[in-house]
C-alpha cells in the first residue's frame, strides 16, 4: 500500500515521498490508513480523474477527500480584492460554479456573502473561504479562495487573509476604473509581495472601457496592460482564463510537510453548538483530529475535535496538510481564543509564532444604549452574541446619566461600526441609540505621580471624562489616517477645500489617466468619522471614492469642551476637540441643544465652554404663553391624555439645575446625524 502511494507521487521530490511514507506509518498507528488508502486507490482508478472538473467534484462531494494527494505544488491560495461593487462576489460565484463547488443555478448570487447586511450593501464583512478542485493540464489542483472583507476598516483582517495567500485577483470595474479601495487593497497585496493578477470585470457593460482601465492599472500599479484579464463574471466570459492564471501565475505556498505543524488563524466564527470554528492556513506539517494544539497568543491548549475543508460549506476531513486551508474546531469557547492572526501549533512541538499578529485595535468608539432601559437585557445579549462572532469589537459597559446603562463599543472603523449596528438591528431586532463616534486620543503625561498611577507615560483616552488636564500633560496625540481619494478631475477643487477644512495635509496628487485624479491626504481620524464620506459623495455627485488606512498618532492641540445649561455643566456632553475646531463644534452642538430642549418658564442659556471661557452661546427663550385656548367638555379627554404624557415624560427628564432636559435632546445631540 505504501508502494502505491509512492508510485502515485513519483513525480514529487524525494523528500516529499519520504514524508508521505512517514505519514502512512502515522495513519496505521491511528487505524485510519485502510480507509484513506482505499479511497485513494478508488480515485486513482477513475478515468475522468484529470479531465473533467465537474465529474471530480461531484465524486469528491460524496465522500471524504484525501488531502494528502495535494502536495504543496498543486495548491494555490489566493484571494480576490476589489472596490465595492466591482464584482468580487460574482466572480467568486462563477469560480465556485465552474469548479463544481456549488451547483450552477440562477440563484447563485454572492454565495459567500452570508450575512443580510453583506447582501444588502454588496460588501463582504466576514471572510469566507472555499476550496476548489481544478484540473489544469492533466493535473488536479486545490485552489483555496480566501475571500477577504472588501473594506480597509477590516484592513487587519484583510492583511491576515492576504498573509495566508500567495496571490490575489485584483478586480477593477471596466466602467468605473480604479477606485480608492482598489488602490488601498493593491498596496496591501503589494507589500505582502503577492502575485497580482489584474482582472477587468464587467466588459459586457455598454460603457465598458477596458483599454482605459488597463492604462490606469499600468499607471497606478505599474503592471503591464497585457497581464490584465478581461472578463464578465456575470456572463462567465473568460473566467476559465482566470482559473488558468491562478495556477500559472500564482506560486504554490512555501510550506513543508516536514516541519512541525504551524497554522495561521485568518478568521474565526462562533457556532452555538460547537464553539469557535477557526479558519486556518497550514504553514507547515499537518494536523489531524485528536491532536493537542496550542494557541500562541493565549498559550491555551485544546484538542482538535473536527477539521476539514470549506467548499464553501464545511466538509470534514481527517487531516489538513502544509499549504492547505480549512477549518478547525477545538473546543474554544470564545472567538477571543482564536483571534485573527494568531498561530496554532502542536503541544509537543512548539514553534515560533507567525509574524504580524496584532490584537484587534479599535479606532472608532461609539456608545450604544437601548431605546428604553427595559430593553437593556435584550441589547446586552444581542451585543454578546454578535461579539462572539467578531472578536475585533471591544465592549465596555458604560452608563450615561441621560441615556442610562449601555455600552461603549470600539470598532475597527466606520463601516465596521455601521455594519455592527445594522446587524444588531436586523439580526437581533434590537433598536439602539448610537452616539456620535469618537476616536481614541492619547496623552503623554508629565506628572510623575500620574505616570506612576497609570503605570506608563502614555495613556489612551476613550472617554472624555478621563481627559487629563493640560497642566499634567506634555503632549496630546490624536490618531491619523492616510486617506486616498480618487475622483474625476472636475471635483478636485471642491475636494481640496473640503480636505483643508478637515485639517488634512495633502501628501500626493497624481492623474491616473486624462480625467481621473488620485489624491492622498493625511487626516486626523476625528475629522472623517462623522460625515466626511457623505459630504465627499454629495459634492462629487457620487463619483469620488475614498479609503483610508491608519497612520499612527500625531501631536495635536486638544482641549476639553463642556456644555452648560444656565451655567451647569452637562456631563454627558463633554467633548474632546481640536482647538481649531472648538468654535464650530461648540456652536453646532449649542444649536442642536437649543432645538432639542423645549421652551420652559424661564430663559435657558446654552453655552459651550473651554475651562471657564464661554466660546458659544444660544438662548432658549422663556415661554410667554403656554395654555390651551379651548377646554370644554369634549376637550378634556384629549387634553388629559396629552398632560398625562407630559407628566410621564417629566418623570424621565434629566434635571440640570432647574432645566428639564428630555432624553430625546441628548439623543439628538449625541447621536449621529441621519443621512
Amino acid at each position: 500500500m505504501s508502494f502505491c502511494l509512492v508510485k502515485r507521487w513519483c513525480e514529487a521530490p524525494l523528500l516529499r515521498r519520504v514524508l508521505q511514507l512517514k505519514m502512512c506509518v502515522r495513519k496505521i498507528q491511528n487505524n485510519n490508513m485502510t480507509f484513506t488508502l482505499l479511497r485513494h486507490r478508488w480515485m486513482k482508478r477513475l478515468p475522468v480523474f484529470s479531465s473533467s472538473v465537474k465529474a471530480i467534484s461531484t465524486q469528491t462531494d460524496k465522500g471524504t477527500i484525501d488531502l494528502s494527494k495535494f502536495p504543496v505544488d498543486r495548491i494555490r491560495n489566493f484571494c480576490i480584492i476589489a472596490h465595492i461593487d466591482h464584482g468580487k462576489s460574482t466572480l467568486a460565484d462563477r469560480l465556485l460554479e465552474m469548479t463544481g463547488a456549488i451547483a450552477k443555478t440562477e440563484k447563485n448570487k454572492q454565495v459567500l456573502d452570508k450575512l443580510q447586511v453583506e447582501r444588502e450593501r454588496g460588501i463582504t464583512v466576514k471572510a469566507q473561504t472555499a476550496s476548489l478542485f481544478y484540473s489544469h493540464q492533466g493535473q488536479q489542483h486545490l485552489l483555496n479562495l480566501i475571500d477577504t472583507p472588501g473594506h480597509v476598516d477590516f484592513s487587519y483582517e484583510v492583511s491576515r487573509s492576504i498573509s495566508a495567500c500567495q496571490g490575489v485577483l485584483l478586480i477593477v470595474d471596466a466602467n468605473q476604473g480604479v477606485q480608492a479601495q482598489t488602490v488601498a487593497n493593491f498596496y496591501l497585496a503589494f507589500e505582502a509581495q503577492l502575485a497580482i493578477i489584474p482582472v477587468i470585470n464587467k466588459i459586457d457593460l455598454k460603457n465598458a472601457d477596458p483599454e482605459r482601465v488597463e492604462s490606469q492599472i499600468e499607471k497606478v500599479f505599474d503592471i503591464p496592460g497585457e497581464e490584465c484579464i478581461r472578463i464578465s463574471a456575470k456572463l462567465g466570459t473568460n473566467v476559465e482564463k482566470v482559473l488558468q492564471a491562478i495556477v500559472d501565475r500564482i506560486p504554490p505556498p512555501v510550506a513543508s510537510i516536514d516541519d512541525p505543524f504551524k497554522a495561521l488563524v485568518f478568521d474565526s466564527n462562533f457556532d452555538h453548538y460547537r464553539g469557535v470554528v477557526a479558519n486556518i492556513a497550514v504553514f507547515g506539517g499537518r494536523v489531524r483530529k485528536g491532536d493537542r494544539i496550542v494557541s500562541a497568543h493565549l498559550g491555551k491548549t485544546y484538542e482538535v475535535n473536527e477539521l476539514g475543508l470549506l467548499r464553501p460549506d464545511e466538509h470534514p476531513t481527517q487531516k489538513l496538510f502544509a499549504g492547505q486551508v480549512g477549518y478547525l474546531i477545538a473546543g474554544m469557547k470564545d472567538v477571543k481564543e482564536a483571534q485573527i492572526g494568531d498561530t496554532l501549533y502542536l503541544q509537543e512541538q512548539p514553534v515560533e509564532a507567525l509574524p504580524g499578529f496584532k490584537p484587534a485595535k479599535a479606532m472608532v468608539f461609539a456608545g450604544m444604549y437601548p431605546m428604553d432601559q427595559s430593553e437593556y437585557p435584550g441589547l446586552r445579549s444581542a451585543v454578546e452574541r454578535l461579539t462572539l462572532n467578531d472578536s475585533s469589537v471591544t465592549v465596555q459597559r458604560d452608563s450615561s446619566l441621560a441615556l442610562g446603562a449601555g455600552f461603549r463599543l470600539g470598532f475597527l472603523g466606520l463601516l465596521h461600526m455601521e455594519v455592527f449596528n445594522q446587524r444588531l438591528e436586523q439580526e437581533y431586532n434590537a433598536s439602539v441609540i448610537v452616539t456620535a463616534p469618537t476616536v481614541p486620543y492619547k496623552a503623554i503625561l508629565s506628572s510623575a505621580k500620574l505616570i506612576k498611577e497609570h503605570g506608563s507615560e502614555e495613556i489612551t483616552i476613550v472617554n472624555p471624562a478621563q481627559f487629563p488636564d493640560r497642566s499634567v500633560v506634555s503632549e496630546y496625540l490624536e490618531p491619523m489616517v492616510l486617506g486616498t481619494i480618487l475622483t474625476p478631475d472636475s471635483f478636485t477643487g471642491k475636494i481640496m477645500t473640503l480636505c483643508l477644512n478637515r485639517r488634512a495635509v495633502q501628501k500626493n496628487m497624481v492623474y491616473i489617466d486624462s480625467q481621473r485624479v488620485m489624491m492622498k491626504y493625511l487626516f486626523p481620524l476625528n475629522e472623517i468619522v462623522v460625515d466626511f464620506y457623505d459630504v465627499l459623495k454629495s459634492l462629487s455627485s457620487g463619483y469620488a471614492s475614498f479609503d483610508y488606512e491608519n497612520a499612527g498618532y500625531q501631536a495635536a492641540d486638544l482641549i476639553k469642551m463642556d456644555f452648560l445649561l444656565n451655567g451647569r455643566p452637562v456631563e454627558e456632553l463633554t467633548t474632546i476637540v481640536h482647538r481649531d475646531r472648538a468654535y464650530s463644534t461648540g456652536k453646532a452642538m449649542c444649536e442642536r441643544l437649543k432645538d432639542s430642549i423645549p421652551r420652559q418658564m424661564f430663559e435657558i442659556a446654552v453655552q459651550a465652554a473651554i475651562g471657564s471661557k464661554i466660546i458659544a452661546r444660544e438662548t432658549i427663550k422663556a415661554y410667554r404663553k403656554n395654555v390651551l385656548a379651548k377646554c370644554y367638555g369634549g376637550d378634556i379627554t384629549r387634553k388629559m391624555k396629552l398632560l398625562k404624557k407630559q407628566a410621564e415624560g417629566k418623570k424621565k427628564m434629566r434635571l440640570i439645575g432647574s432645566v428639564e432636559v428630555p432624553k430625546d435632546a441628548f439623543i439628538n445631540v449625541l447621536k449621529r446625524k441621519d443621512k
Partner: protein
Amino acid sequence: MIKHTLRAVGRALSVGLRCSSDISGGELIDEWTNSSHLTQQASLYVHWPYCLRRCSYCNFNKYISRENNDHMMTECLQRETETLLQLSQVSCITSVFFGGGTPSLAHPSTIAAVLESVSRQANLSDKAEVTLEVNPTPAGKSKLEDFSRAGVNRFSIGVQSLQDEDLNILGRDHSSHQALKTIEEARNVCPGRVSVDVMFGRPKQSVESWEKELSELLRVCDDHVSLYQLTLERGTQLFRQVQGGEVTVPAEDVTAEMYQCARRTLHQHGFLQYEVSNFARHNAVSHHNMSYWKGRQYIGVGPGAHGRFAPLGEGGVLREARTQTLEPDVWIREVRQRGHGTRRRIQLGHLELLEEVLVMGMRMTEGIDHKHWELFSPQLSLSEVFGTSTDVQEWLQSGRLVLDDRGLRCSWDGLALLDSMLPALLVELERQIRQRLPRDPHSDGQTKKTSNP
C-alpha cells in the same frame, strides 16, 4: 307657540325638590358639601354635527350634510337624551348647550323637541341657561327669534374676526357686516345673554390690528366675550398651508402679546376674566361652561359628544368618561337600535377624577377653592397634596401660583403659563395619592367598549 307652552307646562310639572325654579344654573352646588349630590344633577351638551362648509382651521366632528335628515336627527337626539338621562338618574339638568357643527342650521323645532325630552325626564328650570352656538349668517340671524321661542336663552356667536379678508382665509361663510347684524339681533332677542367668539393669532395678524379689532368689537358686543388663540390642528387645511409655507401665523411672542393686550383691554372695559379664554361683565358668565371647569357631571348627546357621569341607572357608582359614536349615520343607526350611540366608556378612578378636577379647575381665575376640592377629595386637602412640592414652592415664590386660605389658583401671569405647570402638578398629585391612599381600589380607570352589533 303651542309647543312652547306645552314645554313650559311640562317643565312646571316636573319641578322637583332640589331644583327649585328660582335657582339659576350652577350656583346651587357650591353650597353643597356632600359629594353624593354630585351625581344628582348634570348639565347637558347636545351636538349638531352638520356644517354648510368646512372652516380651514376646524378639526371638530362635523359633516357637510348631503340631504335633509333633520327629522331623523331630531328623533334620535330626543331618544338618546331620554336614554342617557334615565341612565344617569339625575333629577336636575342645570344647563343645556347646543354646540356643533353649526347648530343654528338645525330647525328651531329640533331644539324645542330636545328640550321637551329633557323636561320629561328631569327638572329643567325656566331660568336654566340654554345656549345655542350661532353662525352669524343671514340665515342664522333670521332664526334667532324662533330659537328663543323654542327655549334658547343665550346665544354664543362665532364672529371669529371682524376682517372680511381673514374670515375668507378661515373659510367662514359670513362677513363682518353680517356678524355685526347678528350680534345686534341676538342682543335684541336675549339682552345681556349674548356671547361673541373671536380668534387671535390669525394669519398675517399684528398686535396693532388686533387691538383695533378688539376695540371695534367692544363697541358692539354684549356682556360675554370668548377669545381663542388660533390653534393649528393636524389634518386641517390651514395646518397644511402653514406647513407648506403658503400661510404664516404670528410667532409665539406675538400671540402672547396679543393675549396679554386683550386681557388688559377687556379688563379696562369692565370685563372680568373668569377663565383662560372667557371674559364677562355684569356677572354674565357661562354657567354651562363653568360646570365643566368645576368638575360637575355632564351628559353628552349627539354624534361624537362627550359625557362625564355615573350611570346610576344600571347600578354604576363611579363616574365614567363616555364618548358617543362619531359618524352621524352610524350614530343614528345605533340610537335607533339600542336607544343610544355610546361608543366608549371609561371608568374614572379616584385619582383620574381628581386629575380632571385639577386640570379644569386651574383654568378658572378663581382656581380651586378648598371646599370645592374637598368635595372630590375628602381625605387629602389641597395643601396636603401640593404644599410640599418644590415646583409649587418655586411658583408660589415667583408669583405664578397662589395657595392661600381660599384655595389654589394661578396668578394673572401664571394663567398664561398654566400648561407648563400642570404636568408637575399632576405628577405631585399622583405621588401624594399613591403614597397616602395606597389601597385605592378605583385608582385605575377601566375601558368598556360598548359592543356594536
